């Protein structure tokens, strides 16, 4: 199934887009999404492997389930304020 991952800030500028799309096998977890992102973008594999993901506006643990209808976002902060 297809998962869309919203991205922001410097990452969105670097990737020249507002979301990344990955395919994962159902049933999928947050860990699977991280792994798919890492596999799809090898130069940034380490970053994507450990990047924090939010599901439906809340940070999710690696074991949390993800469905194609969920709003998934990659939240890497470098110091806001």
């Amino acid at each position, binding site marked *: 199934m297809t998962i869309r991952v*919203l991205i*922001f*800030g*410097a990452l969105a*500028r670097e990737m020249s887009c507002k979301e990344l799309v990955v395919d994962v096998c159902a049933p999928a977890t947050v860990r699977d999404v991280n792994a798919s992102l890492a596999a799809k973008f090898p130069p940034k594999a380490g970053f994507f492997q450990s990047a924090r993901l*939010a599901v439906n*506006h*809340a*940070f999710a643990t690696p074991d949390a389930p993800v469905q194609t209808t969920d709003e998934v*976002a990659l*939240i890497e*902060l470098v*110091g*806001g*304020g």
Partner: protein
Amino acid sequence: MSVLVHISPGPLSSERLLASHSASAAHAVGATVVFEGIVRANEQGRAIRALSYEAYEPMATNSLTQLANDILSKHALIAITVEHSRGEVATGQRSFRLAIDSAHRKEALAAMDEFIDRMKRDVPIWKTAI
């Protein structure tokens, strides 16, 4: 106990928003601490004209509200008001304000430091120098 969170476009006004709290709570306030973050003319050594803030809504508002409630209980505060800009804020203008009402000073200062550290780590707002 009261929390108010407000994300609004452009620079913050010079007047802070006030969280409503009961008259009895107001009588217990012995310390008010207000922190304002101002856009500096230099960002990491580079001259800038403004910062542009991107908030991921509604997660940004939700997580600021949760953070404020958590800090309020943990430090036994009376009220917290959080204001954050989105969009462009020119140098010299305010992009963030955190106001804490507390019975005593020590809790208010500790709460302020912890709030801002956790906000920078967990609240989905990004800034870009322009």
